[in-house]
């Protein structure tokens, strides 16, 4: 656990050592706000809830979160520090986990900074704060899934741009796997069982549940499994480069 904490602290500090952290936070807050009021019609809806705020989060994350994850491994490989890191007495999984937690915590900080939204809606009306809390958790969980996917993409290359594009593309597939656009590609050749399976991978379906304030076991297991699976794949990808 020592190693996980040490790696996490270093990675988190690295975000704030560059302008990346501030650029990310500012853009995230600005876009989240703009989407809520202009696209989501927060005032027009006349309801004291944050649905018009949360509903855009997965789409915001789609291009913002891979930008947070892209440097995790690609940068280590480009600068050669991977050689230093991997020759320290730590297991690959500990390092993978530390990096993931740092990036996830970072998105958590950005998300927490949207608290004025919560203050505002409580000032304007009497929202169901349980639902808001569930939505926050759901939003953070989606960010965690995207981080885990983005970290895998980052482990594949030393080029951060490739890591970003690849990460965003895979995140898009997971997000949209319940939509006809993706399902049609499977329906053409795969049996219905596979198509249903792909459809059940859809992050957006699970997120919509969470936004209604429903935290079901299926959703929790699905999101947890997705993150753990990505961390394992990430570990294998890093180990694989060792044997290459």
């Amino acid at each position, binding site marked *: 656990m020592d190693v996980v904490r*040490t790696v996490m602290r270093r990675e988190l500090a690295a975000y704030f050592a560059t302008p990346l952290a501030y650029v990310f936070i500012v853009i995230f807050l600005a876009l989240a706000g703009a989407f809520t009021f202009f696209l989501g019609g927060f005032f027009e809806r006349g309801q004291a809830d944050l649905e018009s705020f949360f509903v855009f989060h997965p789409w915001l994350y789609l291009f913002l979160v891979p930008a947070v994850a892209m440097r995790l491994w690609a940068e280590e490989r480009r600068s*050669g*520090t991977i050689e230093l890191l991997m*020759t*320290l*007495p*730590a*297991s690959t999984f500990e390092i993978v986990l530390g990096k993931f937690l740092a990036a996830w915590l970072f998105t958590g900080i950005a998300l927490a900074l949207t608290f004025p939204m919560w203050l505002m809606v409580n000032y304007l009306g009497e929202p169901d704060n349980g639902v808001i809390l569930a939505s926050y958790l759901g939003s953070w969980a989606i960010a965690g899934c995207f981080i885990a996917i983005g970290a895998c993409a980052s482990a594949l290359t030393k080029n951060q741009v490739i890591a970003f594009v690849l990460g965003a593309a895979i995140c898009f597939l997971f997000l949209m796997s319940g939509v006809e656009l993706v399902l049609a590609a499977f329906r053409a050749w795969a049996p219905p069982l596979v198509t249903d399976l792909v459809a059940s991978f859809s992050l957006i379906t699970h997120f919509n549940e969470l936004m209604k304030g429903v935290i079901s076991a299926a959703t929790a297991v699905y999101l947890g499994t997705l993150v753990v699976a990505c961390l394992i794949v990430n570990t294998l990808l890093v180990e694989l480069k060792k*044997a*290459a």
Partner: protein
Amino acid sequence: MQEMVRLERLTKRFGDVHAVEDVSFSVGRGEVLGFLGPNGAGKSTTMRMLTGFILPTSGSARVMGFDVVEQPREAKQRIGYLPEGAPSYGDMSPLAFLRFVGEMRGIHGRELARRIGAAIERTSLEEVANRPIETLSKGFRRRVGLAQAILHDPPVLVLDEPTDGLDPNQKHEVRKLIQEMSRDKAIIVSTHILEEVDAVCDRAVIIDRGRIVADATPEELERRSPRHNALRLTLERERAGEATEAIRTLNTVREVQLLEEVNGVATLLVLPVDGADLGAQVSQLLHGRGIRIERLAVERGRLDDVFRALTRGAPA
């Protein structure tokens, strides 16, 4: 001498490329091993296998008895490693960087502070300890890498080109540091600077195209040089021809070369057969003919001759 590092038939292939083939050697306590070879010979690949960064295709590497593949954590704890190019996190200060490496190695609190202080002092990083590493000069960055490698006072040090890119003063400092630390450690230093071998190493392993082509002390290697025990003679210019003829008659002499003629004196280079000791013989011979020798020097042989011969496939 206690054996601390052992490589046994270590082999690495990248697809069809045989980067390292059947490399075996061991290093004992108190020994500084110079690991030499042209660029691309497999030095870094060997060191990366020894430190557990990449896995060998076959063969094994042991550090203090721990197999690097089977017991990586135990082996890595006992190694201090300076990778090629001394990579470090540019956004961190040397102080923060050393703290990170120390904590990764399980050192904490007061003990960590003490060790960081010691490493910074040994590598003379005091004045830059709080500046971001990316703003430091190459020499300082290399020293940050060294500080990181010696932080936990490991029994085995693996240094990949520790003096590359340093100025002569810094090179001297690093060599001094290596010598100071060598007493109770096993140190492997890769380099392509041959003077370094003479300066710090007890033994040299030369590798070429992935294979070991020599494993000997620097003196033994120098002895393989065609110039080992060669005589450098300075005498009167007019009698140089006569002296050359006379020396050539000796059966212990392989060749006599005229090196230069200036200001009435000539310099001859006399190459011996099999490194024979010619000094007494030649001076007697010339003395007998009344040729006055102004200067006579015995050459030790040149490592770079040996290095070139060994790494180009030509006989040394």
